[in-house]
């Protein structure tokens, strides 16, 4: 890595963001929890102070320009009253196993945990369970990365899911983070912790969405309904030995949003982690997905679909860090890019010497819908083990005239033909969304959102 002199703005901006962290209220949270959170914050704060908002001169941010972020001065989001109407975001499958956070604040009134069986925990961090969380929260590698460090240094609350040993949870758990973009730019920093103990199984839906502000805006100017907002999320998932976590991550932020999200996963021996990440919203979004293998024989399945248009930028950086033998990884990353939008994919798979007999495959496929649409895709396999099977591939394609003509010659008009082909491209990933109602919603969004 190169050392570089950061311009003042990137440094000053980060400390301004840090200043926006909510204060820890002893009365609401309890002295013991506050002390613990303060301890976690204090570990990360010095890291943040040494860092700056990355620029395109940083290798990891080469294609993702955050200069538009630096133009916005964000204030800390405040608890919202009245609460927004989230009925359109409710998943029937998780109607009684849902945690809702509004602008980063836990909203028990909108949450429902009636369907969570005894022994399983789903709730916010302030419940008195600290001893067992202590070893997991903010303990995954990668916490020094600037946005993760900022999130940790600002840690106030979190959505926590805990599945005890050998317990297979039938109901999916919906972690819904709603932003009600208002008149002023605000920042919120959601946090999730999922611990699946050995032999357990759970399906978690992590969703970021925008909801109309419950109170109408008084000054709507230039047709712009919402001010910008920044979501800086971190999710840590611990998959115990022989445990299974099925994870759907839906990013449906508003048009003016900046979204930075980290998903860090520790996979113990013989565990299975399946992810389906869908990115549709935000003006600028970045998803960092990091898998750390802590035992042999793990299975990792990563599916992702990004569909963007207009001036959107969506970046996914994934890392599968193997370090033990007999691991299997399957990754399919698909992007549909319209207008002048820009997709970025960097897929790292690390296969060091101890990871013998790894079987890894990565495929990146992009469909460009307009001549101005752009993708930067880069597989990055670093292999030093000598007895492994690793394959990767990348394709970039357009809708072919002949394909559209074939459909037209069967009676479909050109727009329907295009939509059918776009939908067909997305289907491979959409079909893998683990919840039927969500599958339908996403399929409708992909279909009903024609990009010219």
């Amino acid at each position, binding site marked *: 890595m190169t050392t570089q002199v950061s311009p003042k703005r990137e440094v000053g901006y980060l400390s301004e963001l840090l200043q926006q962290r909510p204060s820890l209220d002893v009365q609401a949270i309890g002295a013991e929890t506050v002390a613990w959170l303060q301890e976690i914050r204090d570990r990360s704060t010095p890291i943040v102070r040494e860092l700056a908002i990355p620029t395109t001169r940083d290798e990891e941010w080469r294609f993702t320009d955050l200069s538009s972020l630096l133009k916005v001065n964000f204030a800390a989001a405040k608890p919202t009253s009245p609460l927004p109407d989230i009925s359109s975001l409710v998943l029937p499958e998780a109607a009684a196993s849902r945690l809702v956070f509004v602008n980063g604040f836990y909203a028990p009134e909108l949450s429902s945990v009636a369907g969570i069986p005894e022994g399983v925990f789903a709730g916010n961090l302030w419940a008195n369970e600290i001893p067992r969380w202590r070893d997991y929260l903010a303990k995954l590698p990668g916490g020094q990365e600037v946005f993760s460090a900022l999130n940790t240094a600002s840690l106030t609350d979190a959505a926590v899911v805990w599945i005890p040993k050998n317990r297979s949870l039938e109901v999916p758990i919906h972690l819904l983070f709603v932003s009600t973009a208002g008149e002023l730019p605000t920042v919120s920093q959601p946090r999730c912790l999922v611990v699946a103990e050995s032999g357990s199984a759970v399906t978690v839906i992590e969703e970021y969405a925008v909801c109309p502000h419950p109170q109408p805006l008084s000054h709507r100017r230039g047709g712009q309904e919402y001010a910008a907002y920044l979501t800086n999320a971190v999710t840590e998932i611990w998959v115990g030995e022989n445990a299974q976590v099925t994870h759907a991550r839906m990013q449906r932020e508003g048009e003016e949003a900046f979204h930075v999200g980290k998903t860090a996963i520790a996979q113990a021996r013989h565990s299975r982690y399946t992810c389906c990440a869908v990115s549709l919203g935000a003006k600028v979004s970045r998803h960092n997905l990091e898998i750390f293998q802590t035992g042999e024989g793990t299975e990792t399945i990563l599916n992702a679909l990004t569909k963007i248009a207009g001036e959107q930028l969506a970046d996914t950086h994934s890392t599968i860090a193997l370090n033990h033998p007999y691991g299997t990884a399957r990754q399919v990353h698909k992007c549909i890019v319209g207008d002048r939008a820009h997709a970025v994919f960097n897929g790292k798979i690390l296969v060091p010497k101890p990871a013998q007999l790894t079987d890894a495959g990565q495929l990146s496929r992009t469909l460009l819908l307009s001549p101005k649409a752009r993708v930067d895709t880069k597989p990055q396999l670093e292999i030093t083990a000598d007895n492994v099977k690793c394959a990767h591939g990348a394709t970039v394609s357009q809708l072919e005239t002949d394909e559209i003509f074939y459909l037209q010659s069967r*009676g*479909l008009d*050109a727009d329907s033909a295009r939509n059918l082909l776009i939908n*067909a491209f997305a289907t491979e990933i959409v079909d893998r969304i683990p919840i039927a109602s969500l599958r339908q919603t996403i399929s409708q969004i992909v279909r009903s959102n024609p990009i010219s």
Partner: protein
Amino acid sequence: MMTEGSEVILSVRDLTAEVDGTPILKGMSLEIKAGEIHAIMGPNGSGKSTFSKVLAGHPAYEVTGGEVIFQGQNLLEMEPEERARSGVFLAFQYPLEIPGVSNLDFLRVAYNSRRKHQGLEELDAFDFDELIQEKLDVVKMDSAFLSRSVNEGFSGGEKKRNEILQMAILEPKLAILDETDSGLDIDALKIVANGVNQLANPENAMLVITHYQRLLNYIIPDRVHVMANGRIITSGTKELALELEARGYDWLLEAETAEVAV
């Protein structure tokens, strides 16, 4: 079957067309009536496939002159999908693969767009399923094909049978078969030809484009046309196809050249 006084389905007069500025069709004329099966034969590069694509409305071909009247309508003014909905069907020489779209959904969407055009109610999945089971017999296709993606991983013969299945569903007024026999073994050829014969009736017309006479043993044409250099140089009965098989195209091409030279 040729009968006097049948409705004219397709009338092509002095049609010229080019692709990327290169003229391909140079004065094509043809008339097909209801109940008739016509065959167009000709050497490679004579413009046979171009003609079929121009009729279906492929955007890569630019019509530079002449007219095409389909059941009284100016076909050239219609979008490809309007042509399809009005009853023009092109069975592709190389059917495209559409991963991610099930054959069943594709057939239903196509069928319903035709129904809608005819002012009929669209069929739901359940009713359509009944219809399709019946049509599968026409091309002896297993219903397992319906759940697979359109043409994906299909053999050459399966793709062609799938084209005929689409034709059976859409019941076109004018079916154009573009080298449907190419690359087929004899069993697949018989199945495809048999399917076409079942679909031919006094109300519709078929235009069979082929390089080989072999197909015409199974689909008996009323008229055989020979294309060369972008137009029809001679027409005759099914015996013309046999003669071409025996003598090749050269004698005709020589005669044509001689004629031009005069």
